């Protein structure tokens, strides 16, 4: 199978393009998913290709009927995706940033998530909601990031609702495979795409069509002394910490890339914890009611007898995301904090 190096955004773009070729029921809609589409008659129609450029070029290949620029009306167009999914399409709707789900939360948590169950299994809702999230988390950047209303993570308010699948890819490879799996799934799937994975997420991606299964975590690094659980970017934080732990302290960490927040692959996490006897969960979200604490609680409940040290969580603090790059960097979980947590567990 031939592969080439793609960025995170290129991998998502390829997944959308391949699935739109394969399945005419797939449409893409959202704010500026093309950009300037209404000016096709003036020779302008793909000004943006989505805020993260993941839908670039799609309108040229599939036309304005399947790649739909929407007005700024998230409640209306996310709801339209729900209605379209109930009536024979497989919409991929983009909400620019996860912070904006506040204005369309009803359609996500009351409508999309609950339809299948509430209607006795008689309605299928094959829709995907793509959304960008996360802090810049780089103290070298000048000035600041996007601050409190454009940098959040919001995992817990999405994963909380039964019926919604929530996936968080971390690399170009799993981004393509999870996107394809999400579009083919008959349940609503939210894909959270970190805005600042950068070169860490670049990698070899097969040209062919493949899926990464939803609901399964991936062991990104095998180890024996401690299990580090990462989500999206924090998987890379865990991998960086694992290198330091190995090189400087001779500690062999296993890194689990959670990949799907709901339904959570509890089995893979518990199996690892039962082998390594230690768990650190690293989560960019705020700590209260977070995935970090949820995973910690499940491990405490189901693997307590195997634990040799208290479970640790490394999360953002219980504050909004600050603007100044210095503060934003402090807000964002870093490898050094993970290393410190593991050293505390092992007393080394």
């Amino acid at each position: 199978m031939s592969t080439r190096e793609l960025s995170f955004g290129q991998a998502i773009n390829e997944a959308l393009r391949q699935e739109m070729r394969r399945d005419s029921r797939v449409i893409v809609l959202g704010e500026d998913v093309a950009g300037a589409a209404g000016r096709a008659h003036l020779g302008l129609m793909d000004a943006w290709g989505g805020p993260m450029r993941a839908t670039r070029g799609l309108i040229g290949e599939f036309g304005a009927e399947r790649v739909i620029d929407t007005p700024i009306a998230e409640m209306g167009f996310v709801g339209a995706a729900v209605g379209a999914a109930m009536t024979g399409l497989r919409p991929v709707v983009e909400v620019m940033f996860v912070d904006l789900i506040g204005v369309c939360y009803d359609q996500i948590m009351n409508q999309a998530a609950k339809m299948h169950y509430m209607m006795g299994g008689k309605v299928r809702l094959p829709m995907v909601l793509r959304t960008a999230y996360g802090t810049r988390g780089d103290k070298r950047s000048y000035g600041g990031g996007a601050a409190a209303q454009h940098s959040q993570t919001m995992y817990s308010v999405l994963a909380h609702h039964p019926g919604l699948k929530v996936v968080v890819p971390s690399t170009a490879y799993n981004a393509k495979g999870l996107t394809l799996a999400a579009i083919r799934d008959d349940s609503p799937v939210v894909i959270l795409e970190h805005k600042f994975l950068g070169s860490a997420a670049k990698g070899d991606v097969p040209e062919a069509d493949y899926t990464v299964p939803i609901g399964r975590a991936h062991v990104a690094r095998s180890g024996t002394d401690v299990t580090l659980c990462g989500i999206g970017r924090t998987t890379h934080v865990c991998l960086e910490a694992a290198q330091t732990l190995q090189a400087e302290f001779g500690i062999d960490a296993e890194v689990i890339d959670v990949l799907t927040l709901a339904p959570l692959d509890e089995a893979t996490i518990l199996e690892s914890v039962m082998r390594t006897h230690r768990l650190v969960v690293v989560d960019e979200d705020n700590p209260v009611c977070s995935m970090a604490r949820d995973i910690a609680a499940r491990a405490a409940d189901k693997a307590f007898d195997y634990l040799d040290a208290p479970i640790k969580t490394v999360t953002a603090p219980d504050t909004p995301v600050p603007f100044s790059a210095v503060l934003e960097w402090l807000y964002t979980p870093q490898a050094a904090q993970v290393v410190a947590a593991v050293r505390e567990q092992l007393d080394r």
Partner: protein
Amino acid sequence: MTPGDTPTCEQLRDLYARMSLIRQFEERLKWLVETGVPVGAVHYYTGQEAVAAGVCVALNGSDWIASTHRGHGHCIAKGMDVRPMMAELFGKVTGSNRGKGGSMHITDVERGILGVNPIVGAGVAHALGAGLSAKVRKASEVAVAFFGEGAAGIGTVHECMNMAAIWKLPVIFVCENNGYAQATPFEYASSIPHVADRAGAYGMPGTVVDGQDAIAVWRAAAGAVTHARAGRGPSLIEAKTYRYYGHHQSDDTLRYRLADEEKLARDRDCLSQFRAHMESRGPLTLTELNAIDAQNQALLDDAVEFAKASPVPEPHELLTDVYAPVML
């Protein structure tokens, strides 16, 4: 069909049959509630029958409707079987939603019913999506968004009207103005007298129609359907109507409505008016209409028996159907 057309004999029969079935369904339900049968929270449609029937008789089986919290009438008018509806209210596994939805979530996608929906305005977006879907699939289906005058105050409805208009989607917005959003009077919540007047702001036709007159509603809907199927985009119809009972089964209307209001509305009852119209002008006779009533009564006797005799869901159903089966 063009606006101004008169309904055929078959359509007149349908209009009456559906209004009568809705009325009897709601009256039977009210009796069940009052005799202590636990059917959950219900919002009676009684009084508004001409709106649901008038609109839905103008539709085809393959057309879509999205409903409101006050949705039994829409479902019946769109052709739903009263057996699974009644069983759903009883929380039985034979219900339309296997007993997992209740009154506020009755759905029958096979019949184009996208769901009763108790989140005000939410269903309007689903109708928008159905209209978008029809256009993408190049199907000649139309989608109707029923909503109350209360929902005319929520942003979703306006977002959807704008998108339907800019994309020229086959969506018909039907505002059932029954005068009250729960206990809040329309004249308090709107600075203009007609929701339909807002249609102009979105560049679509808006019509006010007498919601107690099934033929008038049908005529307005038939015109909007023709407009939509011709690819000319959405319309807004505002039907002025009245709900005879409270917002829900235990709401006392005398705490916020004027004493003679209900009587005035009942004097213009949609079923009585239809019967008087047929009596004076035909083509249907009162004997025929009475036969329809009797048939509907039998359907409801059967539906209640069916609901009573049906089993409740097995305990394992608590955990089923959270997600759809995965077929990659």
